[in-house]
């Protein structure tokens, strides 16, 4: 995908999002009082200004991309990327894993969930050196738990570890 075609998509996405906010989210999400004193701006005034501005900017981005000469990607990536399909799959898997981690925290607590999550995230990167990430997966969550619970007095949700530490 060239930067121009990407910018067209970006422009349209901005217009769609801002338009949806302007026409649906603001009327539904911001109740406005019937009467105002002189000089009082309604609560939806500022969000309407912002979203209207975003619509205009989105259109400008798309138009500039359509009418500007085609530009090739600068190709300045330092790290070699995966093939597009592999890259997409890996990123999607990481996002699923991230929300799985969130779900797991609510199920078994933050420390144990983190102990499980660190190796999974590392393996997904392609890391195979167990002797590095397994000790890290055990030590880091425990240290963070001890800091927040006993130094900062912030109750970290962890039913299992609370019995021990």
């Amino acid at each position: 995908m060239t930067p121009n075609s990407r910018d067209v998509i970006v422009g349209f996405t901005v217009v769609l999002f801002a338009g949806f906010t302007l026409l649906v989210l603001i009327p539904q999400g911001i109740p406005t009082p019937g009467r105002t004193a002189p000089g009082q701006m309604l609560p939806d005034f500022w969000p309407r200004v912002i979203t209207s501005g975003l619509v205009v900017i989105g259109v400008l981005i798309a138009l500039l991309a359509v009418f500007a000469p085609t530009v090739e990607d600068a190709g300045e990536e330092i790290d070699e990327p995966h093939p597009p399909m592999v890259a997409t799959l890996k990123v999607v898997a990481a996002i699923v894993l991230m929300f799985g981690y969130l779900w797991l925290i609510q199920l078994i607590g933050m420390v144990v969930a983190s102990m499980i999550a660190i190796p999974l995230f590392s393996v997904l990167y392609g890391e195979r050196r167990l002797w590095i990430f397994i000790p890290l997966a055990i030590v880091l969550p425990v240290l963070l738990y001890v800091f927040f619970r006993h130094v900062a007095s912030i109750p970290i949700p962890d039913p299992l570890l609370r019995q021990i530490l």
Partner: protein
Amino acid sequence: MLENFAVGFSLFFGMENFLAIFLGVGLGIFIGAIPGLTGTMAVAIALPFTFTMAPVTGILFLVSIYKGAMYGGCIPAILIKTPGTPAGACTVLDGYPLARKGQAGKALNMALYASAVADFVSNLSLIFLAAFIAGFALRFGPPEFFTLICFSLTIIAGVAGPSLLKGLVSAGLGLLLATVGIDLIFGTNRFVFGEVQLMGGLAFIPVLIGLFALPEILDYYAKKLKPKEIPAEIGRSRVSWIEFRSSLKSILRGSAIGVAMGSIPGIGGAPAAFMSYSEAQRTSKNSANFGKGELEGVAAAEAGNNGVAGATLIPLLSLGVPGDVITAVILGAFMIHGLTPGPILFQQNIDIVYAIFCGLLLSSAFMLVWGKLGIQIFGRVADVPNSILFPAVLVMCVFGSYAVNTNMFDVLVMMLMGLVGFAMLKADIPVAPFLIAFVLGPMFEDNLRRSLVMSQGDPRIFVHNEITIFFLGLTVVSLILLVRRNLKKPKASRSTRPT
């Protein structure tokens, strides 16, 4: 001023503050030395760890990380030709050729001395200028603050990267997100949709961490894991007094350039480093050697870069507006600790202000200590594999986001903001304007609405005295210059990824 210093020093003088600065500078250098991790990310992740600290200790810890990261960026720039921070890019020009000649230790030492001197000069300028400007700002009411924030918002154009329009999209999204919660004038909900957690608005830290830490972590999954470049040997070469003295002029000039550019919102360290470098090259008797491994080039670049550090705090402390992204984060930190930077801070918490000044002066010395003691260790930091580091950073993000209000909703917000940040990264939309707008947005709207209530809707209140006219004039001039600069940019440079 001396009385204030005495009061501030008595508040500052405590082991916890010394320790916070010492650890903060060390942590900052460590993070800055890792390519891919930024000072902003470091401060964002460290912020929740300061909740239980005293305000002075917490702020000093964060500012020390910021300063350490600015210096730390030069380490991978010199050793592996990969700047740890954008401002470190200029140091590559002469630092890496020196490393190739087997003089990496000399380059690192010169960078350290230049950084420490520039940082100290920058801190002094902060101390002398901030109180003066704050005294002037005591006359400010809502209209004056509104026009000041208008001017501050123009820094968005400075951090927008290659495309001003995309920077504006980012800022618009930040402004919109900042409106979530209860309306301050009418007390009605905005974008709450029955979710009680949203009534107080989105918490600053989860938004910050999500935007600055998660996108890099997710983006790294799209890249192949490869062995890291082997860093150049540091060696034991030292900078002689004669070498230091011959670069001193460039260091002092670079410090002054850094102070001047840092005190203007939105400029940042990288342009200061390049301007300092080009001035040094123009005036040096070794100008032909610049770019081929000239020690004075390293000194000039690092002096320009670090001269910015203290100066960016001038608008933050005196006026309550951030000079760049990282000071926007530090502004959030002040608020979390129950302090509002600006003239009121100088009136009500002068002891805290001067305690912070004392700590800042000490941070320059600790930078020197860390640099001398740890140069060999920090030289190896660039070896830490991201495949190990990033999962650890993610776990710290989760703990930190949860700690804000001890609820999982903030962790969810952090992850969702991470996805937003990742989408912005892929669309080449910079995230820095988002954060600045998110911080300044509520102040902008609040002062606008208060001003109009005061004037009963008459917009002439914004041109009613010389202060508002001055700031509006600055805003207009700044916008014209920025738009002109953007229009003049070659199209090719617009396709590059924003930082």
